[in-house]
């Protein structure tokens, strides 16, 4: 028996180590990702916005840069002002924030592309002697910046997203831009269907999903977004459309039930007590009535 116990303990220790080893395995960052550069030169304004994001999402584990007050985790998160971080490329930091590993969460669904670069700008403000490499050149698609417009085609039950490239105030349709549409939910954004690529007219059409609940009036808050945010930035368009089902389900405590509060008890429970009391009083009254009858009949009999 003892031998089995020892074996179990050994197995547990081994398992522990293997899990531990798994969590501290090195980062595997593709070269093209590591060489990636920011879409623009870092400015103090970017760092300032980045600081707000940092305080909300990063401080709890990484502490304040340069103060060496990280959370006591295993492994201990790095102080982001340290030389070890300063020597990493912008692309490496970007990849780590986007994808995460082990205890470091992936922020691709929680932070926007712009915010991630803002955080990097903030971290870089602690690295003395950091020289930013040339910002990457945005691919041309008939313009230098992209603009989206979102429309609801009521008759065809489709959403139309129009993407145009703007260059020197001249707009040309942007072809081949991958787009996705989302609707706001309480804890996040729900993607509707698959992402689509714009045609030669710069248009992409999305089907309205059947039976999707909106607000009380059936309105959906929609957002159209560019999928490839690295190339185009956080380009989006939003709008509120009456394309969903009105959601007016009653609260769960509306109906009468055993578990509900006194005023919402089932009828039979509410009525049982008063009816019971009435029945007892009625019976006593009936008996008294009978006694009175007996008494008066007795009187009549003696009078006669």
């Amino acid at each position: 028996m003892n031998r089995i116990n020892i074996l179990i303990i050994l197995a547990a220790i081994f398992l522990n180590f293997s899990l531990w080893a798994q969590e501290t395995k090195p980062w595997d960052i593709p070269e093209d990702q590591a060489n990636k550069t920011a879409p623009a030169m870092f400015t103090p304004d970017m760092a300032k916005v980045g600081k707000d994001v940092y305080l909300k999402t990063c401080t709890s584990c990484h502490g304040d840069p340069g103060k060496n007050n990280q959370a006591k985790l295993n492994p201990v998160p790095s102080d982001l002002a340290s030389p070890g971080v300063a020597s990493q490329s912008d692309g490496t930091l970007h990849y780590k924030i986007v994808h995460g590993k082990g205890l470091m969460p992936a922020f691709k669904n929680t932070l926007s592309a712009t915010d991630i670069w803002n955080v990097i700008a903030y971290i870089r403000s602690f690295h003395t002697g950091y020289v930013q490499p040339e910002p990457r050149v945005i691919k041309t698609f008939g313009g230098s910046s992209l603009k989206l417009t979102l429309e609801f085609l009521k008759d065809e039950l489709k959403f139309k997203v129009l993407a145009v490239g703007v260059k020197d105030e001249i707009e040309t349709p942007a072809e081949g831009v991958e787009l996705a549409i989302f609707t706001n939910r309480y804890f996040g954004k729900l993607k509707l269907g698959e992402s689509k690529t714009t045609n030669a007219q710069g248009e992409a059409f999305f089907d309205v999903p059947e039976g999707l609940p909106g607000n009380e009036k059936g309105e959906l808050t929609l957002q159209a977004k560019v999928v490839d945010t690295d190339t185009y930035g956080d380009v989006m368009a939003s709008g509120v459309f009456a394309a969903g089902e009105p959601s007016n389900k009653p609260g769960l405590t509306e109906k009468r039930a055993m578990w509900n509060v006194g005023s919402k008890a089932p009828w039979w429970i509410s009525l049982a007590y008063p009816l019971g009391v009435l029945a007892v009083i009625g019976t006593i009254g009936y008996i008294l009535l009978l006694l009175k009858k007996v008494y008066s009949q007795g009187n009549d009999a003696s009078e006669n």
Partner: protein
Amino acid sequence: MEENTNKHNSRREFLQKMGLIASGTIMGGAAMYAGFKFEKAKKTESKIKALSAEHQLIEVDGHHPVQDKLTELQMQGREGLKGRRWVMVIDLAKCRNARQCMKACQGAHDLRPEQHHINVLQMQDSENTAPYFMPKPCQHCDNPPCVSVCPVDATFKRDDGIVLIDNERCIGCRFCVAACPYSARIFHWHEPLKNQEYEENKERYSQLIAEGNTQEAEELEKKVTYDVELNVPQRKGTISKCLFSADRLRVGKLPYCVSACPNGVYYFGDENEDAVTNGTTKETVQLSALLRDNAGYRLMEDLGTKPRVYYLPPKNRLFPFPEESLTNTEQHS
């Protein structure tokens, strides 16, 4: 002639009756007023005799200040978030017993390590099937047997589906513990974990009030006031249970356990919106599609409790279960 006497008699009788009723009302009213005054006077000065723990007869103040109005937090806690129906989905395929959910929960609700609002169980449905890990919180049933049996309306169900406990009302009868088929409730047999801290806070608070230091007192008030949506401060002799982190939902955050999970086990959201959000990846998916595509199910469906927690089967598990694990009962002999 006869009619006249009758008339005369009935008037006299009427006046007599009226006089009786009037004097009766005045006397009755006076008696009630006197009684009311007496009761009011008694409250402030009366002493009642009681037996102390040392078996000695002592006199104690007969007047106990009864809290007849609910605090703002209690009232707020009784109302759900309008138009919401919270729902949780637990993906058993992803759970690898990291126990971060339990840790986060115990930290938030001041629980001892052996007290669980949520517990990760090791399951094996039959001899020849594979074992798996199953996190088990309160199921927040739509037909909650625990609420039906509560004799003092301490535990209740809200508009948005959450079943809560108000430990200011709880008398510790533990009917609800017996009624719950999911063993979701715990009882505070001992002083709660942070009892000393609660006592110190309370003392400090009354000190600050006495000193008139309202600013610091206000800061401390949050820690002293009982929050139904967090069930803190915990109290000996009362029940505690999973609250779906009602305090976090109010501010638009996912529950403690859901956001603490490193493995993407939990989805949480609003059934009315038909969407749930994963606590780890923060990805939002359609609830109906998730349940349909993965054959989601609820625990003990046949009891008719209608749980608000769904499970996805432990299919294609992403990790191995510890070999010859603790579920092997032979090893315990």
